[in-house]
């Protein structure tokens, strides 16, 4: 048995001496690693790093990780369509966009993530999921779990306990999936419900499903037990020792360049800017004094920025110069409440200081910002 510290030393020396991250020849079919971090961006960065830098020809990798509360959307999804961004901001829940396809998931410490790294040729999702089911059944034989042809794992033929996504590159590929152990279902359902209306886009939509925690089925189960069972099954199938190496995603020496990968995943340009082109077409009902104003809004958003903006206001409600200034300011800006707020409040500074006007303006702008 090789000691963990010695293993890390060897890995380190391998990385420093040769440009390619390689593994010592004593290790065989599979390597099991677990992240010590609960930061979704750092963990996604580890996936990127392994995908970009590791030679998976001789050795496949299983990566185990858990995140503190976060919503993770698929590569080609629209966050406005998929979740309640206002609620996320309020509750300080992070939003991340992963590089693999598929739908939106909610992560917290009660949900475990498994990533199977292989070469492109050996990419095989069904095998991986069957491995997970086998591990679960070995742990609790009475569990009714099976894999569907949509690559979901269902409990009791009804409840989804795992969702899958994958990323294929030139020479390597990875398949990752979630496993619901003991996640907060209440928060899950509230954050994954989008309040935004009038959105039209070709972004990949998520398919909502009823979910259940494995903990609900069997309260004796914990995340640690499940992680261990899966690692054991992986070790058996890959003829390697059942040993989990802990890695720290903040360790730049072990994973050179990881800090920048994590940083990139947090940029606005990646999280929001990668949203496929979409349009917003809705009607704001603004209650003002004794009446209700109908304001039609049409916006085209590309790369997360407002390309085209049309606001249909009844004439005379706002002076036309102010209205055109608003449209001009919003065009080209991020579809983001923070930026929009800054712009509209600035416009107020440079327009006639009339209380009545300010009230109407504030009402209109606040309603517009609610769309973001």
């Amino acid at each position, binding site marked *: 048995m090789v000691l963990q510290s010695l293993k890390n030393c060897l890995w380190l020396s391998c990385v*420093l001496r*040769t*440009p*390619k991250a*390689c593994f010592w020849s004593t290790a065989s079919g599979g390597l099991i690693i677990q992240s010590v971090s609960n930061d979704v961006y750092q963990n996604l960065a580890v996936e990127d790093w392994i995908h*970009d830098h590791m030679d998976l020809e001789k050795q496949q990798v299983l990566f185990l990780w858990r995140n503190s509360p976060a919503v993770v959307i*698929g*590569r*080609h999804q629209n966050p406005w369509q998929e979740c309640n961004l206002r609620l996320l*901001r309020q509750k*300080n829940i992070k939003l991340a966009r992963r*590089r*693999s*396809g*598929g739908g939106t998931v909610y992560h917290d410490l009660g949900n475990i993530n498994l990533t199977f790294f292989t070469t492109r*040729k050996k*990419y095989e*999702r069904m095998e991986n999921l069957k491995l997970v089911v086998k591990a679960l059944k070995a742990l609790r034989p009475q569990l009714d779990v099976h894999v569907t042809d949509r*690559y979901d794992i269902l409990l009791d033929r009804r409840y989804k306990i795992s969702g*899958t*996504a*994958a*990323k*294929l*590159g*030139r*020479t390597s*590929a990875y*398949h990752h999936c979630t496993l619901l152990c003991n996640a907060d279902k209440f928060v899950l359902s509230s954050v994954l419900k989008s309040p935004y209306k009038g959105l039209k886009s*070709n972004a*990949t939509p998520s398919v909502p499903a009823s979910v259940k925690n494995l903990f609900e089925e069997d309260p004796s189960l914990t995340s640690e037990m499940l992680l261990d069972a899966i690692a054991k099954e992986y070790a058996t199938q890959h003829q390697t020792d059942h040993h989990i190496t802990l890695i720290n995603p903040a360790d730049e020496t072990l994973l*050179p*360049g990881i800090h*920048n990968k994590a940083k990139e995943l947090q940029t606005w340009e990646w999280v929001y800017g*990668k949203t*496929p*082109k979409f349009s917003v077409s809705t009607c704001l009902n603004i209650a003002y004094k004794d009446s209700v104003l109908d304001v039609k809004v049409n916006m085209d958003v590309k790369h997360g*920025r407002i390309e085209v903006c049309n606001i249909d206001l009844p004439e005379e409600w706002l002076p036309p110069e102010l209205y055109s200034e608003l449209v001009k*300011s919003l065009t*080209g*800006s*991020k579809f*983001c*409440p*923070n*930026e929009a*707020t*800054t*712009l*509209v*409040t*600035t416009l107020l*500074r*440079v327009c*006639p*200081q009339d209380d009545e006007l*300010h009230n109407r303006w*504030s009402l209109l702008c*606040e309603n517009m*910002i609610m769309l973001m």
Partner: protein
Amino acid sequence: VCIHRVRSCSSIRFIKSKYVCVFDKSALKFSHQQRLFRTSAVSCGQIVQFKLSDIGEGITEVTVKEWYIKEGDSVSQFDSICEVQSDKASVTITSRYDGIIRKLHYSIDDIAFVGKPLVDIEIDASKGVAPEEDVVETPPMSHEEHTHQEIKGHKTLATPAVRRLAMENNIKLSEVVGTGKDNRILKEDILNYLAKQTGAILPPSPKAEIVPPFRKTETVPAAPKDKAHKIPVPISRPIAFSGKDKTEPVTGFQKAMVKTMSAALKIPHFGYCDEIDLTQLVQLREELKPLAEIRGVKLSFMPFFIKAASLGLLQYPILNASLDENCQNVTYKASHNIGVAMDTEQGLIVPNVKNVQVCSVFDIAVELNRLQSLGSAGQLGTSDLTGGTFTLSNIGTIGGTYAKPVILPPEVAIGALGKIQVLPRFNGKGEVFKAQIMNVSWSADHRIIDGATMARFSNLWKSYLENPASMLLDLK
């Protein structure tokens, strides 16, 4: 032997310099004036249809989700071309060839078929078509240093353009650390290696934000001794600068600042500066800080500055006023909504504390905490950012002494506070003592504010802060 053919096409365009070779097997001449990083666009290359390769799992069709290139772009082998999606799997398609993209066969959201053409690439005929496997086979070079280098059983991956650059500079590819995908050696890696040899400092590459900006010097192997006299001295062969100007539109926070400051330009500003002895205030704050902490509030100096300003405005209400568009009327604002300039990641924002005239110092501290946490999270609302009547900017937290702040319309005055420094001063007895000195720089609208008013307001504000106990007399 590397052969470059010069065709006699009329449409040859040489962008930077030329690779002129005599097509004569016995003598090869390379003459160039400048270093080439990409071959010139010779439009008489061969067009190859790059087909969508097998995705695996029996998948026959995918949806094109994003193009990384457009028609006319040049690509190198292994550059990413597009992202396609199939059934929860996102696939990055990379180029098999070096060349220029001539045609995209699909638009975004189209269904693409495995085995059918994805893009047309025009490749430089002299380079030939790279084989199916992923390892690069380069045409054999005359220098024996540039045959396949094997590092511990792995071949070095580098495109022909990169190999040419290495050869020009007499660099062994095995000595260079590759930072590209699969440790491919990129042009930047050659440049960095060169910089270390010649000691030249290279400007950062334009793609610095994606590529790791620094290279660990420990990982770069030491330069072999025989290279020393072969590497050219920078003066004789300047390393080409690959940085480019970057133009982007002004949007968002920058746009907001452009609008505000352009309007501010119309205001005739005058400045008035002074220094304040905060020795007593520093002591007072030290005493009160723990009390505020017990109540769960962080107490800085700002609440004191803000409250003192409000007390001053009660005596000089013209500083809390607004001049209309045509300079016909002055409106004296009843509320003292004092703005606090905040520096966030995105840029400058100025939320304000409402009705300071009826707030205690503690109330102001609570409100400031709220605004600061919302501000750093980017969640300030419109009501927090509008309605300001007077502004203070504590630039001293970052640094500086005197400043020349710009008034934020529709206000008529603003104050910038420098950093607190410990300086020697003389007291009443003529002795030198340690004083905590802060500088203040006021700007005011000279159309309705005169120097005397500003000076008197400043003196009053100063007296409150130099002797905090005097604030007690006038606190409402």
